[in-house]
């Protein structure tokens, strides 16, 4: 063999070896992402891509979802639990620029800046000292309690002893983005030619409505531990279409966006089906300012006439967990018992409210956003109430934007379907929804006693006292006032062939950081 021929064989062998250990991973990410800038996005599809392209101080562990070191190597917490000092790793951006603590400061300030219009600015604004004024344009940036003490040390002071601070820091609003690139390129900084990142992968291609392709970032601080050559995020909105791709082996992993609920019976039986109960709650919200739901007895009657177990076992069948309480159990906090299924009591309450046997019950409409699954659940509810209480509710499905407008702006509803996925794992993130005047308080619930309990919890350190206070608040909201009808907790499910891929584990927060994925 001549030298040339020999070289060619070696090259082929190397390529083959590379093809064997590194792999290309393809999956459906759901709807086309609104933006690849983690500061300006709030949806799950965007977050999945941000997790691949950027990193924050801490990231989610693959199995438990708990915060583990990311860009920060280690940290210390002050005795009053308010100040965190992080030591950053010595690493660079994907273009070679050294990454310093000042980059963290700049990134967080950019999120807080009113001009950016970051949907999660309030996460920083409500938790960091001095940040709220700045984000409302009423204070200088210098007052925000974040500092770069030296190129590798970053310090932040929170408004209180927040028990969920570290978990919150894994949120994409806290990711460290290249402010210098944003300044240099403006809104086009996220496009393949200009892109600069610090995550396990970098952006290679972005074809709208089609796919986002990222490849391994050789300058990532832990590049040695990244085992996929590329990840392709497809942008298919239709679950059936995506599931068909999975069946045809055109995609490697099926998330919620590729598991159609109508076919759950066949999907459950597959060996590659993984599921674990999650913490997203599905409920129906009362507009408590509208008849007949201004009467708590009517609200309770409707809630107690529902056999949630039948819904979960007979209609949903994917392992959802029925609940009459709103906030899932977490840490030392326990879900309230709520008002369980009791048809006799429900009938009695309805009669007391003036509608014995459902007679004279005013017309009532349940609104929900268009989807086969919501429709099925609503139809089942309609029948349940007709059979159990003798009342007839109308169902109205609204197209998404119209639904949001009705629920959030005009509040022109009596009962609306809703769900809540926590921004960080703490009961206050759920209960804050119902504070008087809160932005997302679509049902117009207002109870001063509830507000007082929530305000008190804000000042308490993590521990049993805080847990009990929050539990009291939930009992008030659900058991006593029945401001909503919780139905069930979602199941986090996905399809993955464990023999070919690893690093994706079923966890309750349903966050699967691409940093841990690998091919077997």
């Amino acid at each position: 063999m001549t030298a040339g021929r020999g070289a060619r064989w070696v090259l082929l062998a190397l390529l083959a070896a590379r093809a064997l250990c590194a792999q290309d991973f393809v999956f459906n990410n759901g709807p086309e992402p609104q933006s690849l800038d983690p500061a300006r996005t709030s949806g799950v599809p965007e977050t999945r891509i941000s997790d691949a392209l950027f990193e924050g101080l801490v990231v989610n562990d693959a199995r438990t979802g708990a915060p583990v070191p990311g860009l920060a190597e280690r940290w210390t917490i002050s005795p009053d639990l308010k100040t965190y000092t992080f030591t950053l790793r010595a690493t660079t951006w994907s273009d070679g620029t050294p990454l310093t603590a000042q980059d963290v400061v700049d990134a967080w300030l950019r999120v807080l800046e009113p001009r950016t219009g970051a949907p999660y600015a309030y996460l920083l604004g409500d938790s960091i000292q001095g940040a709220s004024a700045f984000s409302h344009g009423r204070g200088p940036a210098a007052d925000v309690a974040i500092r770069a003490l030296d190129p590798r040390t970053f310090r932040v002071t929170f408004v209180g002893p927040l028990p969920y601070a570290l978990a919150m820091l894994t949120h994409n609003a806290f990711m460290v983005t290249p402010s210098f690139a944003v300044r240099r390129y403006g809104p086009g900084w996220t496009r393949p030619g200009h892109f600069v990142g610090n995550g396990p992968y970098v952006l290679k291609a972005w074809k709208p409505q089609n796919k986002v392709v990222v490849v391994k970032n050789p300058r990532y601080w832990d590049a040695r531990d990244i085992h996929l050559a590329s990840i392709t995020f497809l942008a298919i909105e239709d679950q059936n279409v995506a599931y068909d791709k999975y069946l045809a082996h055109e995609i490697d992993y099926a998330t919620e966006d590729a598991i159609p609920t109508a076919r759950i019976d066949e999907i459950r039986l597959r060996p590659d089906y993984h599921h674990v109960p999650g913490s997203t709650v599905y409920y129906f919200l009362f507009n408590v300012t509208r008849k007949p739901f201004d009467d708590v007895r009517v609200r309770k009657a409707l809630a107690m006439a529902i056999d949630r177990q039948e819904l979960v076992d007979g209609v949903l069948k994917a392992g959802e967990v029925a609940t009459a309480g709103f906030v899932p159990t977490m840490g030392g906090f326990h879900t309230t018992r709520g008002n369980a299924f009791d048809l006799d009591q429900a009938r009695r309450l309805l009669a007391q409210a003036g509608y014995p046997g459902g007679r004279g019950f005013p017309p009532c409409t349940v609104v929900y956003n268009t989807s086969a699954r919501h429709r099925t659940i609503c139809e089942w509810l309609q029948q349940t109430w007709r059979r159990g209480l003798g009342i007839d509710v109308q169902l109205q499905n609204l197209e998404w934007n119209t639904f949001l407008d009705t629920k959030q702006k005009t509040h022109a509803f009596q009962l609306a379907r809703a769900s809540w996925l926590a921004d960080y794992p703490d009961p206050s993130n759920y209960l804050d929804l119902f504070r008087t005047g809160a932005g997302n308080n679509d049902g117009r619930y207002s109870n001063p006693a509830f507000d007082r309990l929530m305000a008190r919890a804000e000042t308490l350190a993590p521990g049993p006292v805080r847990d009990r206070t929050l539990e009291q608040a939930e009992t008030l909201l659900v058991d006593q006032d029945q401001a909503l009808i919780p139905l069930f907790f979602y199941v986090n499910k996905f399809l993955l062939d464990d023999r070919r891929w690893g690093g994706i584990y079923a966890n309750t927060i349903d966050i699967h950081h691409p940093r841990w994925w690998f091919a077997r």
Partner: protein
Amino acid sequence: MKRGPKSPMLRFLLRRGLSLAATLFLVITLAFLLIRLAPGGPFASEKQLPPEILASIQRRYHLDESVPRQYLRFLGDLAHGDLGPSYRYQDFSVDELIRDALPPSMTIGALALLLALVGGVSLGTLAALRQNSWLDYTAMALAVVGISVPLFVLGPLFKLGFALRHPWLPTSGWIDDRRGWLTLILPVATLTLPYLAGIARLTRASVLEVLRSDYVRAARAKGLSEPVVVLRHVLRGALLPVLSYLGPACAGILTGTVVVETIFAVPGLGRLSVQAAINRDYTLIMGDMIVFAVLLVLMNFLVDLGYGFLDPRIGHGADAP
């Protein structure tokens, strides 16, 4: 009607051009107002944006200005060929999005139209010439099935048969995927079928009518051979209704691409415009609409020209269609 020197043609083109521009202008204005009537907006989301953030974003996109001002700004940008940034896909401008989405839709739509036209006219003519034969009945039965089954049943059925049960073709995607041009086959076949069926039926009906007319009998009496009779005389007259149908067929194909693109995950304009409507992405809606309107208007113009070509009695003079 005689066709005189170039100037009537030029006058006709000029008048047509102006009237098209006027129509386009009216459509744009009407649409601009209408989309702001729809409830919700581009920045609605399940977890509501805090009011100051919403205000800041709206300022950035000039949504805080009065509607007439926004309209004038829009017209001004349009005059510079700038369709604006997408409200929803914040990292892209509207013309980038449309530029990427147009080729897939055009490819599928044009192929479907071509196949439907060629196939439909051939099938319909054959069926008419062999009226009441088994060929006629089978062809027409197939045609009826073609227009009776909705696209969102046809598509999944094709997918089931040709991509899932037997992995001959990819289930969805576009030609930049691994399996390249094969990805085109199913979406085009799905979209072609209903229009092929419609055109076949229409052609058959029309050819049958024409076959009975005087000038065809005259042609036959002259001793011309059958193929010549068919091609030169019959088709000329018979194709008029088919030509009329092409306008709505195009519109139908444009809406059909929405379903086909959704089922086969094609990154095209149909899917983009549905998402734009659902997301209330005002600028993208306007951009899509302008593109569609231009396409339709062009198509109708071609159809009108075709009228003139096929039926020489219709001139381009004062009472031109």
